[in-house]
């Protein structure tokens, strides 16, 4: 039985991740990672050769992690309130656990999956997805409604599950970065940096100040692009076309500026263990910073417009509220957490890389509605734009890449504040080849809060609420 650690003020520590691994003697192990409010995360490893006691009733955030553990490792979970399959759908046979054995040609079966049934007079079910109306990733939403009002929303995800964590196994530590970039394409730089940091920690490598600084620019640019796109998306969802089109133009200007600086639009193939694959020319970095300044000035104009337009306020305010208790119990992260009163940011709480040299505050709001999440993104974009300017203006010198030496068995853990929140990589490598790589994406942790945000809202507001979370399906499903 796991003794859940407490923080200094006596509260239960925040759950960061639960995942499995296979030990040197083929034994199953379970890793728990907690945040106690100290600089370092706390990791607890338990043997899992037998059944495992669930902690989901005390720590609701553990629910999906434990279900994933059961699906992937075949670890029996005792005392969990909902043990329906999570990762594998109706087509996957019982008793096949890909993280334990190498599986091939898995037979197709038909299992039954039961959605929770809400019963009563006048209750209807609305099934949406997996294929949605628009250029969006696949997932299934099952609404139980009375009239327009959502009584209950059940999520069914993992349509984009690609067995990514298994693909890491056997890959060399240097090429693992390419797999990490394909976990969630729009946040590929955060994934590549987080993966690389985990390798660097495992091998005791210190990247150069220059590589750290350029990584910071890439990470903050990714945040700025992501938040600009989200604000535009929110406007599109309430029919505010001018601002939506404006945001797409600003986003494109940043992507084009990236090509001139690092060769790719989304900074793919730039970060690798040991630093960066190549150096970015200081002049090009300054050009990028100029483009960021122009883009941010345009962005702040539409941001002002959004906050002052009554019809927008009317749609954003009080829609999709995530109460602070819910946010805490589900241990949500990123802008969603900060909009619901949780002061949480890896850049400050567990600082890394060039952030250690930067002074900044993160915005926190209490309302927990769509407006709060929009305001958080607007305020964060300002911080990102400023950090990019400051870093580009004082770019340190140094080698872009230092050698990484993964000799013997090494283990590393790293966390990065991606645009969607706390992203973590835990990995183990033997003689330069990965034997396990676990990815905790912020989307995996935030999706379970969506039903709480949707409850009591009208179904027509759901796209707006969903957009205000802006979660990655592929990041969650992996």
């Amino acid at each position, binding site marked *: 039985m796991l003794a859940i650690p407490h923080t200094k003020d006596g509260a239960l520590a925040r759950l960061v991740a639960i995942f499995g691994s296979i030990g040197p003697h083929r034994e199953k192990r379970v890793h728990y990672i907690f945040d106690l409010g100290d600089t370092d995360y706390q990791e607890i490893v338990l043997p899992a050769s037998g059944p495992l006691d669930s902690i989901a009733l005390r720590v609701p955030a553990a629910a999906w992690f434990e279900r994933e553990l059961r699906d992937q490792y075949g670890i029996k979970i005792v005392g969990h309130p909902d043990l329906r399959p999570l990762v594998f759908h109706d087509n996957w046979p019982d008793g096949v656990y*890909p993280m334990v054995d190498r599986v091939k040609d898995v037979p197709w079966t038909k299992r039954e999956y039961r959605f929770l049934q809400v019963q009563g007079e006048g209750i209807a079910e609305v099934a949406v997805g997996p294929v949605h*109306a628009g250029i969006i990733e696949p997932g299934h939403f099952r609404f139980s409604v009375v009239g327009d009002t959502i009584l209950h929303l059940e999520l069914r995800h993992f349509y984009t599950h690609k067995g990514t964590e*298994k693909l890491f196994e056997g890959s060399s530590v240097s090429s693992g970065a390419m797999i990490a970039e394909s976990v969630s*394409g729009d946040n590929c730089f955060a994934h590549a940096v987080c993966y690389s940091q985990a390798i660097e920690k495992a091998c005791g490598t210190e990247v150069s100040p220059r590589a750290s600084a350029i990584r910071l620019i890439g990470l903050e640019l990714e945040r700025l692009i992501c938040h600009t796109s989200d604000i535009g998306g929110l406007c599109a969802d309430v029919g505010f076309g*001018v601002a939506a089109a404006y945001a797409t*133009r600003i986003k494109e200007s940043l992507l084009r500026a990236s090509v001139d600086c690092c*060769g790719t639009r989304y900074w793919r193939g730039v970060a690798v263990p040991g630093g960066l694959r190549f150096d970015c020319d200081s002049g090009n970095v300054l050009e990028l910073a100029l483009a960021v300044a122009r883009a941010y000035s345009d962005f702040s*104009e539409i941001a002002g417009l959004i906050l002052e337009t009554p019809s927008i306020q009317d749609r954003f305010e009080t829609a999709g509220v995530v109460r602070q208790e819910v946010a805490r119990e589900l241990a949500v992260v990123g802008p969603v957490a900060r909009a619901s009163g949780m002061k949480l940011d890896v850049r400050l709480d567990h600082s890394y890389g060039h952030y250690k040299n930067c002074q900044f505050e993160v915005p926190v709001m209490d309302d927990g509605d769509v407006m709060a999440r929009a305001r958080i993104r607007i305020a964060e974009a300002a911080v990102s734009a400023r950090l990019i300017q400051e870093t580009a203006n004082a770019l340190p010198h140094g080698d872009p890449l230092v050698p990484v030496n993964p000799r013997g068995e090494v283990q590393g853990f790293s966390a990065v504040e991606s645009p969607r929140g706390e992203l973590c990589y835990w990995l183990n490598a033997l003689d330069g080849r990965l034997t396990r790589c676990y990815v905790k994406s912020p989307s995996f942790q935030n999706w379970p809060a969506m039903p709480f945000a949707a409850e009591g809202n009208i179904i027509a507001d759901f796209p707006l609420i969903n957009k205000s979370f802006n979660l990655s399906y592929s990041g969650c499903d992996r």
Partner: protein
Amino acid sequence: MIGDVIGQSLRQPNRIIPVEALLGNCDGSRMPEIVAERLTPAIAQRITEVCPTGALGMEESGGHGCLKLSYGDCIACGKCIESGAGAVVRAKRFTWCGVPKAQIVRLWDIDGCLEITPHTPSSDEARGQIHSLLQRALNIRQLDAGSCNGCEAEITALTNPYYDLERFGIHFVASPKHADMLLVTGPVTRNMAEAVKATYEAVAAPKLVVAVGACGCSSGIFAGSHAIVGAVDAIIPVDGYIPGCPPTPAMLVSGILKVLQRHVAR
């Protein structure tokens, strides 16, 4: 306030990119191109070894040792460019977007230092036809079969004021029943296989299917995973392929137009 923004918007320069500048453009994609004169057996061997997805390979053709480059498998990681000693460079133009499967693979005779595969018609030759082509409307339904969302991000960009796909009469529709073309991204996952087939069935004939991105063309980096079924053509018939990881908006426009052009000519 809104007046100010519209005023500001009107003062902005026109950012729309003319179609001629989009066709064949691949800036920001890092797709590789072989410089045949510099190719040696040693370089061919080395770049084949560093390629993570098997897009580069050696094979025999007509008694000659050949280098094979399959753009459908290429995730544009740039490793061959790094280790190719000048024999592999970033493509300045890329005309393999929208080609049928048979044309997506190129072959070079290593000893003779020349390309064996026939020259694909470049976008320049196609230019004349584009305008007559664009008098038609095309409705596209985008379908994510399990992608990482990198391709989605670039497809979304097609509607921004730089690319403005709607100016060509092309637009994205919400239902497969309204669509002429399916733009399919991602390796087809086990969990999406059924939905992909059902979506394809729901599109009225005649219909076009375009596989997008390394994953859509070949499963890309996810090849061999237990949780995927394979590339898009493992599940439904595909008319054209748009390589890239992810393909840039310009590559997407080039590819969509090339598939359309071939279809109209038929």
